[in-house]
């Protein structure tokens, strides 16, 4: 059977790794290639680079980051942040990315999902959704680092994204993100029940138990974390050892 995946995420700004807490207050830390190598040594099943560079001109730096990482790290690499065209996909895949994640561009132009899937295959098209719970109990998809409510129902959007050819959903709970109180299980269950592709759980993990909980109580295929690994509160290896003890299949 397939292993559950543990995915460290590196937030990259102007070619450097940073980590925002609750999408604000960003700290500068290290070199993305070195961080990715370290994670790979710890047993990361995949590495995500999230480019939070503000301007279009500086975006080519992420292509260099991917190219340099792909020379030294031999697990799948996913890149997200600011991708808005099939040409952006092509540039990142050519540099050595295996998957490209799109968020606001897909909400703005849902046809981008199918265009990219037709040209490069669904397996490399990840749709990232930042979801926040509304007062009426529904979830909305947010964009611009969580500042703008699109008004789009996040669960329905996940389903539509799959129908349009997304190969994977990267689901971040804006409510759980940064809290360290655990993944947003109700949100994950709602999304997992309507999609037929793998779902990556993101936002909220703070302890080893949160990782086993997300795999025991939802159908999530992978769990992603950024600051937890970045500040070395836990290592990827510790998480996987814990999951193995809980009889959850992982690559060790």
């Amino acid at each position: 059977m397939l292993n559950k995946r543990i995915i460290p995420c590196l937030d990259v700004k102007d070619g450097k790794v940073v980590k925002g807490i609750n999408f604000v207050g960003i700290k500068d830390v290290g070199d993305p290639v070195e961080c990715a190598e370290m994670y790979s040594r710890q047993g990361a099943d995949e590495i995500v680079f999230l480019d939070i560079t503000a301007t279009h001109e500086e975006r080519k730096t992420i292509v260099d980051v991917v190219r340099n990482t792909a020379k030294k790290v031999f697990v799948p690499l996913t890149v997200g942040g600011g991708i808005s065209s099939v040409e952006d996909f092509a540039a990142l895949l050519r540099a050595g990315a295996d998957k490209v994640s799109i968020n606001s561009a897909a909400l703005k132009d849902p046809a981008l999902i199918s265009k990219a899937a037709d040209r490069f295959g669904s397996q490399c098209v990840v749709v990232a959704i930042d979801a926040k719970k509304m007062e009426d109990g529904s979830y909305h998809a947010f964009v611009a680092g969580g500042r703008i409510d699109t008004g789009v129902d996040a669960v329905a959007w996940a389903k539509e994204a799959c129908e349009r050819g997304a190969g994977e959903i990267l689901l971040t709970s804006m409510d759980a993100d940064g809290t360290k109180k655990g993944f947003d299980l109700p949100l994950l269950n709602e999304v997992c029940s309507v999609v037929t592709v793998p779902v990556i759980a993101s936002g909220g993990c703070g302890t080893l138990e949160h990782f086993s909980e997300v795999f025991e109580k939802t159908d999530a295929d992978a769990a992603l974390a950024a600051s937890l690994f970045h500040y070395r509160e836990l290592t990827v290896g510790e998480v996987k050892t814990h999951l193995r003890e809980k009889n959850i299949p992982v690559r060790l």
Partner: protein
Amino acid sequence: MIAIIDYGAGNLFSVQNALSYLGLSFQVTKDKKAIENADGLILPGVGAFPDAMEKLKESGLVEVIKNEAVKKPFLGICLGMQLLFEESDEFTLTHGLSLIPGRVEKIVCPYKIPHMGWNHLEIQNTDSPLLYGIKQNDSVYFVHSYMAKTTAPYLSAVCDYGVKIPALVERGTVFGAQFHPEKSGEVGLRILKNFGGLVK
């Protein structure tokens, strides 16, 4: 020198990066002479079977691959592995390179398709030179929707996905990996290193 065969259907960069990392000498080529002169061959491949066979034919490489693959170590990766078989059902019935008996069919299983992620190797042939140093249940990275159907003598390793999927096949000098060794961490690098060791 390993020739990585470039026929316009495949992401060659990851394979090149892995061979460079391992210090194996290689060239990327679609030149028949270079393929004949190489000491080992790698056939990558991403995409659909009919399109890839068409591109091999357009490049005029079908015959040279069939002739050379039986003379020196040859490794097909992912779609490059599927092309080694006699035929495929993907979209339309298409003949392959017929280097290994068997055919390629859609994966039929109760789980999500594509079969994408890290799965465990169930080693069938412990004498396979590519599996030297690889342990039972080591994980490798797969991304595919079609699978080979072949018989025991050619199956070096399978993986379980509700159905037993051929993961590593071999016949003489011809090897095929359904998974991506270049994306399978230390285990994948070891398999590529083992292949490099077979190449003079």
